[in-house]
């Protein structure tokens, strides 16, 4: 039994890892070796990274700007989702109010409906408001679609907090807002970190809305810029893989730093993914 499991585990390791290994491998491959496929690099080079960082190739001319756009959109999404979900979860988990069921239903509806179904009308709408090519449009879309899950995880956690929070607040004569800021917020920091990471990654990984809402080399975030490589026949794949590797690093680092929070958040509250 142990041998069998070990063999299966090794097979799955290879299956899981090979595409990632191959990406990193190609990013160290000089252009001359690109067309002689192998399982390792014969003449490893850092040139692809040097070109990328130095923006020393027409394909990566705006690398830092595009990376910056990705970063700005992701950070604002994180902030927005954190704020919206923290406020919402206080009501959903700690209050009993009319229409609560409708709010819950709406949230779940937004969580479940594929965001691509709404992309075209959303694009039209942003066109009407003259918000095409602004990061604001993309951030608004990202906050909308990342909030439901965040609310879910936060509310689930907040429900497990003792009722003494409100009682302590009431004793001190604090209003609802003070209770929220001084008693509730400090207590939900761990799940807030988890959903902040989740929101950041959601925006960082987003492709469709970024493709629709932002245009022009100086405006687009990194994934859209990378996919533009694909439309030309002579795409420099090794360079593209260097960009891919750089683009993959933040999510992987975040994931390993906050793995504990992320996984427990994912599992305790709900499920997300695709």
């Amino acid at each position, binding site marked *: 039994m142990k041998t069998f*499991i*070990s063999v299966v*585990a*090794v097979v799955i*390791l290879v299956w*899981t*890892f090979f*595409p*990632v290994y*191959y*990406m990193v491998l*190609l990013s160290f491959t000089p252009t001359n070796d690109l067309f002689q*496929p192998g399982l390792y690099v014969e003449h490893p080079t850092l040139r692809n990274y040097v070109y990328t960082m130095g923006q020393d190739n027409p394909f990566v001319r705006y690398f830092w700007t595009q990376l910056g756009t990705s970063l700005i959109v992701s950070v604002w999404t994180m902030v927005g989702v954190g704020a919206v979900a923290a406020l*919402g979860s206080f*009501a959903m*988990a*700690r*209050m*009993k*109010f*009319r*229409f609560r069921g409708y*709010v819950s*239903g*709406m*949230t*779940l509806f937004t969580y*479940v409906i*594929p965001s*691509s179904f*709404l992309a*075209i*009308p*959303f694009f*039209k*709408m942003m066109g009407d408001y003259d918000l095409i090519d602004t990061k604001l449009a993309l951030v*608004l879309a990202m*906050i909308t679609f990342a*909030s439901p899950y965040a*609310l879910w995880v936060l*509310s689930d956690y907040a*429900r497990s907090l003792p009722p003494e929070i409100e009682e302590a607040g009431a004793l001190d004569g604090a209003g*609802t807002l003070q209770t929220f800021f001084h008693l509730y917020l400090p207590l939900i920091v761990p799940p807030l970190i988890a959903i902040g990471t989740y929101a950041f990654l959601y925006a960082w*990984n987003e492709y*469709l809305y970024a493709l629709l809402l932002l245009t022009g080399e100086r405006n687009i975030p990194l*994934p859209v810029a*990378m996919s533009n490589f*694909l439309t030309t026949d002579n795409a420099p794949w090794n360079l593209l*893989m260097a960009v*891919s*590797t750089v*683009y*993959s690093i933040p999510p*992987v680092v975040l994931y*390993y730093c906050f793995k504990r929070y992320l996984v427990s958040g*994912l*599992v*305790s509250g709900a*499920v997300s993914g*695709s």
Partner: protein
Amino acid sequence: MTPAMREGVLAAPSRVRLSPFRSRTLQGLLFTAPLLGLFAAFVIYPMVFGLWYAADLDSYRGIFSDPVFQQTVVNTLWYVGVAVNVKLFLALLLSGMLDYRYRVVKILSALFLIPWAIPALPGILSFRWMLNSQWGIFNHLLTKFGLPSVPWLAQHDTAFGAVMIFHIWKYLPFWTIIFLAGRRAIPNELYEAAAIDGAGVLQNFMYVTFPLLRSLYLICTLLSMVFTLGDFTVPWLMTGGAPGDSTHVLATLAYRYTFAMGRLEWGLATFAVAMPVTLVFIFVLMRWVKI
């Protein structure tokens, strides 16, 4: 692990704990106002807009008589029906394996989530280069062993197969972790009792694990199917509909109708066709899952 997870059903709000607080409709609505504002502006409004625009019957006549649309529906059914279910079944099996405490399994569980952690695009690029018919590693190996090379992304079956395989590669780890958590929530006494009755691995799975994971498995299936129904990124970046627009799914076809062909009403109708199924899924889920 919450007790609710144990039954595989997500927690319903507990009324008991809420009892100390009075009903505060205004406050509740104020705290959820940002959320409701976003949903109204960016979910309800676009949806109504889209359905209203797609209400013209001519667009449906148009798309239903388009062979590309027919092929797309078939592709989408394969994607949502087959790829998702194969993925979830594998995830269920794998989650059982990750429960063993061998060293190689521990290494595996540490690295296992990488495909899920990195964004889709880099993974797709890597797959595409591996599948490149001239310089890809797969054809290189095939020809090395004297086999004919395969134009992976240049024929419908293997190209759409690549889309499905990539989907499984990327999302299998995530669902495995979910099922693993579900398994860990099963009380050990049940397995001990089963062992006394002489149950083997298979009996354990049939009579203990699966009955207890069933509702979790069903919820995950529904969720994953709806999410995948709207997937744009993977098919678009893997094949872009090529060869000859034969590998589209609903989302990529709607993009093509709207932006490449300038037929907004066709693009919206493509989604409207999928709406009834999606809504059924959503309402079933809403009965089972509470926020």
